């Protein structure tokens, strides 16, 4: 392998990253970010790992707890990496590196290394290393070196599996009905842990037969093998398990190489007449002079794998989570959870493309200013299309509430549910406008869950935090208090709507003023 060239390419990736923030005080921002955010998180992860090892040893079931912790971290890392598009795609395309005098292996190595060195895998590595060190310190496991190696190899398998899943998700999502399939699988992946917990408690067949059987098979998986190494007293046995982990690495690497051979999903139908007068144009027709912008934006949404999948996933996840939390024994019947989760429905639509509304246009962004269109109409269309698409989900989500909620669904409850949904819709779409204007990034429409820009991640995080906070707060207050102060929700909805419409007005001026900067960001990526 051409190691110097490999490191040169990895270095280039970081030089480009550095160049992106090389604005006024950009370097300072990066340094502050690196020292005051990444490093503390790494330390927290590492000490958290040590803490969980200590808890596992104190519980007296060191290996079982290690298996559960490492297994959960393993699955969550894959899910988060794919959902946030972080650490699942190389910084450079394999074909981009063909111009350099590098062998196939070098090219593949450079590509994978740039994806592996994303912060997410460093955080996972810190956590796994903490667990390994913790077990060695508190349990007196065989060898620290073997435990550390196991942690490292575990993260490598975790990364490789996330890459394979990401490639498959991209491939499936780009097929007809693929988005629906991916949405179902990912929704199930998110709701699977609480579902299994419920099953374990309630279904005897699962508890007595299927669970032990599944556990037997799981013993061979990387997190369970790594847990065995970290808690193993015999060095020889740990070494054998380490070899098994190494085999997993080779297997996943081979599968990743094979996944690169999946046929391209780009439809090229030579000889077919170009369809340019389709349903999108008919839907857009009533919008008058903005109709071409509306039909273009609708086409982009229909062709964006990520947007399609997230759109479908939003409703599926809402349905699954509501179903899991509805408890017929309590009077609230899931009302608290429904109110907490309904804003999520409005958030889902904005997540697809709305949070980076111009990022998918690339050099086409300049057309908005060359064409006879006002910045306000451009921004209105860029924001109202995801808002309307998300709004389509709200009646369906309310229908789910109607059928799943236990207890009386009277006018007050309806007002609360509708307000919660509309409030989230306006708030998150307003936020998406600001991230589109202030944090745009170059994005590819064909990549389902690949590289995503900071703005989208911000909306994702801002969306998740209030989601859980509201559920927790509502849970603490109780349904009686909620119903007593029902009017708070409509008031908040009106405030959110005002925020949205003010944002559209102010945003048009910002769009006009920042157009050169946005063009540079969405066209060149810096």
């Amino acid at each position, binding site marked *: 392998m051409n190691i110097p060239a490999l490191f040169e390419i990895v270095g280039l990736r970081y030089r480009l990253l550095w160049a992106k923030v090389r604005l006024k005080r950009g370097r300072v921002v990066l340094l502050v970010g690196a020292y005051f955010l990444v490093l503390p998180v790494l330390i927290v992860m590492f000490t958290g790992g040590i803490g969980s090892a200590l808890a596992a040893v104190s519980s007296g079931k060191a290996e079982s707890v290690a298996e559960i912790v490492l297994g959960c971290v393993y699955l969550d890392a894959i899910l988060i990496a794919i959902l946030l598009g972080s650490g699942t795609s190389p910084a450079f395309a394999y074909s981009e590196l063909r111009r350099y005098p590098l062998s196939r292996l070098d090219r593949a190595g450079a590509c994978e290394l740039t994806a592996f060195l994303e912060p997410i895998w460093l955080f996972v590595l810190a956590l796994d290393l903490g667990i390994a060190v913790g077990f060695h310190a508190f349990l007196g496991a065989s060898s620290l070196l073997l435990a550390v190696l196991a942690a490292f190899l575990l993260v490598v398998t975790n990364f490789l599996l996330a890459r394979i899943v990401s490639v498959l998700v991209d491939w499936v999502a780009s097929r007809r009905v693929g988005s629906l399939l991916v949405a179902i699988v990912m929704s199930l992946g998110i709701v699977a842990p609480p579902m299994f917990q419920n099953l374990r408690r309630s279904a005897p067949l699962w508890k007595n037969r299927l669970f032990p059987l599944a556990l037997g098979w799981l013993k061979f998986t990387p997190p369970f093998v790594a847990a065995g190494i970290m808690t193993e007293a015999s060095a020889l046995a740990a070494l054998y398990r380490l070899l098994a982990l190494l085999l997993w690495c080779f297997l996943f690497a081979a599968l990743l190489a094979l996944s690169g051979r999946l046929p391209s999903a*780009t*439809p*090229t*139908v*030579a*000889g*077919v*007449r*170009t*369809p*340019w*007068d389709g349903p999108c*144009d008919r839907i857009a027709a009533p919008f008058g*002079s903005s*109709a*071409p*912008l509306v*039909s*273009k934006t609708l*086409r*982009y949404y229909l*062709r*964006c794998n990520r947007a399609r999948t997230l759109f479908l996933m939003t409703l599926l996840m809402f349905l699954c989570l509501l179903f899991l939390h509805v408890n017929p024994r309590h009077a609230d019947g899931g009302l608290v959870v429904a109110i907490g989760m309904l804003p999520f429905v409005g958030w889902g639509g904005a997540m697809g493309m709305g949070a980076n509304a111009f990022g*998918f*246009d*690339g*050099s*086409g*962004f*300049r*057309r908005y*200013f*060359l*064409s*006879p*269109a*006002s910045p306000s109409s451009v921004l209105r269309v860029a924001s109202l299309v995801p808002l309307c698409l998300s709004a389509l989900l709200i009646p369906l989500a309310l229908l789910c509430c109607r059928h799943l909620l236990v207890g009386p669904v009277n006018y007050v409850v309806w007002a609360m549910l509708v307000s919660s949904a509309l409030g989230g819709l306006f708030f998150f779409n307003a936020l998406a406008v600001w991230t589109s204007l202030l944090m745009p990034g170059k994005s590819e*429409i*064909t990549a389902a869950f690949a590289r995503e820009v900071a703005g989208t991640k911000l909306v994702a995080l801002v969306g998740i935090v209030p989601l859980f906070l509201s559920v927790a707060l509502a849970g603490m207050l109780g349904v009686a208090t909620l119903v007593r102060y029902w009017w708070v929700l409509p008031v908040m909805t009106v405030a959110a709507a005002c925020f949205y419409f003010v944002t559209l007005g102010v945003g048009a001026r910002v769009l*006009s003023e920042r*157009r*050169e900067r946005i*063009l540079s960001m969405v*066209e060149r990526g810096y």
Partner: protein
Amino acid sequence: MSTAIEMTHLRKQYGQITAVADLSLAVPSGSLFGFLGPNGSGKSTTVGCLTGLLEPTGGAIRLLGEPFDSNCVALKCRIGVMPENLGLFEALYAGEFLAFQARMYGLDERTSRQRVAELLAAMELSNQGKKPLAAFSAGMRKRVAFAAAVVNAPEILFLDEPFESIDPAGVVVMKQWLRHIVAEGRTVFMTTHVLETAERLCDRAAIIRSPGQLVWQGDISQLASGRPIAVDGEEFPTLEALFMHVAGKPYAATLSWL
């Protein structure tokens, strides 16, 4: 003869960097105007300012006799632009993109359909089916961008490096169209690095050098009939010779290892 494009003391700065220093230029209606200059001299920036993409830092622009800025929606309907980097919506198909352009410029449904169909046929793009523009070759993308620039039959057509990457047959067709547009009394404002093309095609030209400073402008139609242009007491039989005299810097570096 009326003036189609007029810029007075045009200035454009990107922070501390001056892209166009102080450019004053008038382009008569019905001319095929070549806007020439070395790399980085400010040609594309000037076109960006003239078409509403960029906000000039200073100076004034008049198009078709009316003052122009980026908010002049009505005036934008009368111009066509093939910008730098083409500005295509890459997820759309060729027909969809042309239809988008036609509708944006306010063409009615019947005219849009007719023009899009004719342009697709003329540009040999009718059979590309459901192929997004991102999958097109560089030359085909350029054809789409050219078609998009002319779909509204503009009174002024701005073209930034129009012939680059297009095959010779395509170039011949495009040149014919440009001559036809000019013969109709419309104006073409074109940047190019191919001086032979500019010499044969354009009737007037301006040469600028970094940062957007006009060094020469005038009639170049006489070059096609073999008559030289006199500048600073010297005669230049080709546009290339004139360009090198007013704006060119010969590459002095010698690479001994090459």
